[in-house]
């Protein structure tokens, strides 16, 4: 372990530790009414962890049913509910709130701002999220069962949902409103509250990726809200946006959905890119390679994300020209993504690497996200996508980019900044154990799904032909191994919050020159940067 034992001497630069402020309110009111970015960040992260466990349990129901062929545990309808709600919870309840929580905590600390620009809205957007997911979970208990049409909510199937439909749609509306408010807050904060001297091209990569993500959110969440509102009117008010019988078109929904859905993919992964760009330089003890090209690559990926949506739906029957366009545009994404992977590799080249838990997660991200990138490139090729589409190959692909991709980056971020948040070092041995169990089981879980998909197993089926039995059993074993390993993560965080060896301000040996967050004491005081620090040009990004 390389946490330094530096005193807080170099941490001071006089940003107001003599208490002019009142501290946090006492008891539950602190959390209900707080406008403090650190408290709200914490609430987002705890919320995300709870949702991760709930969504994960649903995935385990799916993997348990798929352990052997035949129906043993659940009704096929309930199976569909589990796949659907698992995805909705993981996307909107676990991954997105985790990155928002990290952004809330770290953006002000990284840009030298005292708080988020719009603190009351910050509080509101968190509590809206709680309301949203209460509605979604409530929808499971409605007559007719929970939403079971897949998280994409394609009509006409979704219109067969029972009383759960309006609940799920309002849940999406609330979660979307929450995301939009969060995004506005992040943009306003970054644009207006940077410390003097911190130009845009001097910002840490995490701040950059979040800025771009926030613009994506503002651009596409309203589109999604519009799509589900049309579902609502089709179902309750006799409109026929998505019904051919009334002059509509079910495929129209898919276009609108994926116009939201593809940028949504990058909303989940861009902050992860930012996190990895923070962690790797710290533990390679070397500046991030190609900072400028990292920024431009992130922006290019964000731009391309708006013109590739139809690659999610090549089988709907598109004109040849459409298929060509979306194939070529999609393949182009490999270029900026490649630049990022190469830059991270070049950052490690001739560095001085140590392997603390955050770095282990960042390294696993680098390898496993790249595998997900390759399968993504394969799926861009329309003729072969006609075979891959809606099979387990797709399931394997997007889980590779989302679990050892986004989720591992988030876990890496938690291990990176947890000492800064709590003021305690955590148990390194236990964290490494958590890493190795997760990294091994995630591959046992998802790698065989490539084989299943290629061999012809469709996704979203509760039972399967016997030739798929073996890899399904392996995958389920990996699933339970991965799921149970996460209990270690929860235990470890709990223990770190309760106590542990005191962490220094710099925390990590290599963090000395990286970012303003390491100039404040650990734990970060309730109020930081009352007076803005001065940043000398170009120094703060890693």
């Amino acid at each position, binding site marked *: 372990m390389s946490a330094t034992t530096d005193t807080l001497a170099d941490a001071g630069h006089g940003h107001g530790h003599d208490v002019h402020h009142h501290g946090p309110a006492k008891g539950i009111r602190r959390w209900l009414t707080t406008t403090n970015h650190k408290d709200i960040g914490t609430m987002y992260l705890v919320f995300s962890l709870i949702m991760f466990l709930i969504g994960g349990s649903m995935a385990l129901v799916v993997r348990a049913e798929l352990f052997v062929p035949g129906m043993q545990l659940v009704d096929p309808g309930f199976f569909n509910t589990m796949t659907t709600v698992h995805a909705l919870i993981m996307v909107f309840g676990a991954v997105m709130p985790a990155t928002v929580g990290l952004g809330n905590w770290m953006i002000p600390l990284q840009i030298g701002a005292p708080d988020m620009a719009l603190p009351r809205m910050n509080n509101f957007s968190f509590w809206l999220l709680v309301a949203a997911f209460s509605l979604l979970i409530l929808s499971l208990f409605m007559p007719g069962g929970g939403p079971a049409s897949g998280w994409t909510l394609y009509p006409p199937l979704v219109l067969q949902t029972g009383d759960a439909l309006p609940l799920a749609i309002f849940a999406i509306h609330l979660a979307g409103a929450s995301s939009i408010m969060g995004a506005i807050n992040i943009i306003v904060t970054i644009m207006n509250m940077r410390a003097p001297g911190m130009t845009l091209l001097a910002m840490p990569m995490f701040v950059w990726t979040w800025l771009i993500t926030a613009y994506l959110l503002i651009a596409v969440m309203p589109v999604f809200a519009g799509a589900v509102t049309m579902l609502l009117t089709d179902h309750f008010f006799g409109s026929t946006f998505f019904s051919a019988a009334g002059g509509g078109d079910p*495929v129209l929904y898919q276009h609108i959905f994926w116009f939201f859905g593809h940028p949504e993919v990058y909303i989940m992964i861009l902050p992860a890119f930012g996190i990895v760009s923070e962690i790797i330089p710290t533990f390679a003890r070397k500046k991030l390679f190609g900072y400028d090209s990292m920024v431009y690559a992130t922006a290019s990926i964000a731009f391309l994300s708006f013109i590739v949506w139809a690659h999610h739906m090549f089988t709907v029957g598109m004109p040849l020209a459409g*298929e060509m366009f979306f194939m070529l545009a999609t393949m182009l994404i490999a270029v900026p993504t490649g630049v990022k992977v190469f830059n991270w590799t070049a950052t490690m*080249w001739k560095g001085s690497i140590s392997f603390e838990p955050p770095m282990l997660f960042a390294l696993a991200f680098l390898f496993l996200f*790249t595998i997900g990138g390759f399968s993504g490139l394969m799926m861009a*090729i*329309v003729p072969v996508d006609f*075979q891959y589409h809606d099979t387990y190959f797709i399931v394997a692909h997007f889980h590779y980019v989302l679990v050892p991709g986004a989720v591992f980056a988030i876990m890496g971020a938690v291990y990176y900044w947890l000492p800064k948040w709590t003021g305690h070092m955590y148990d390194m041995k236990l964290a490494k154990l958590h890493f190795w169990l997760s990294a091994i089981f995630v591959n046992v879980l998802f790698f065989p799904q490539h084989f299943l998909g290629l061999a012809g197993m469709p996704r979203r089926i509760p039972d399967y032909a016997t030739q798929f039995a*073996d890899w399904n059993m*392996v995958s389920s074993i990996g699933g339970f191994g991965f799921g149970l390993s996460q209990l270690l993560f929860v235990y470890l965080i709990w223990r770190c919050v309760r106590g542990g060896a005191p962490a220094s301000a710099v925390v990590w040996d290599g963090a000395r020159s990286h970012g303003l967050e390491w100039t404040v004491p650990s734990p970060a005081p309730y109020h930081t940067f009352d007076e803005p620090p001065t940043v000398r040009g170009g120094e703060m990004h890693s």
Partner: protein
Amino acid sequence: MKSPKRDLAGGVALLLAAAPAYAAWDLNLRVGVTPLSRDIYGLHMLILWVCVAIAVAVFAVMIYSVATFRHSKGATPANFDHSTLAEVIWTIVPVLILVFMAIPAARTLVAIEDSSGSELTVKVTGYQWKWQYEYVEHGVSFFSTLARRHDAARQLDSGVDPRTIDNYLLEVDNPLVVPQGVKIRVLVTAADVIHAWWVPDFGMKKDAIPGFINELWFTADKAGTYRGQCAELCGRDHGFMPVVVEVVPRAEFDAWLAARKTTE
């Protein structure tokens, strides 16, 4: 990096007595029995190997870095943080590789979309949860549903071991019958929700969308029974509406069609 994982995975499953007698550790796409499916398979393998080659190169550099430039070995960090030449190279080279992949892909795609010159048209309609097949030029049509024995076995806690049933969940009462070596145009639509008609050995999958008619074609040059499934989530029994196609010699098909016409 596949094989150690495969060994590990295989070992775990064997430990748990995963009925090795039924083992089918399929890893790859099927070559299939149509010219298109073979093209698609070739394309798949081409891209796969390109990806594997890039992965080997990139992962080798990553592994070398992680193994060599270690703090614990006393490595001192270098000071460079960009190299315009390197960045230009690793932007341009991927573009060239992509062009190399896009050309054969575009060629195959054009062939896939050319359904002209077909000799037989079959209209496929998806229902929750069965298929209807209609020989448009011959006025023959029938439904195709999961075979009863399979349907009984797949009920919750049926007590039937799926391994005792041949082609579990991939058997129907009335399969689609088509002639061998003939270009067949399939019109795909649906009556209720969206389904997708898919036979992996034909290389083709198309969504069946209520109110719209999609098109695909195949020429199966080998007689036999080919099995697939509905590929678009269509509700509770989405997993239980298989597609079974019997490809038979021309004469046999004509006889079958004639017999079918008299029973209609």
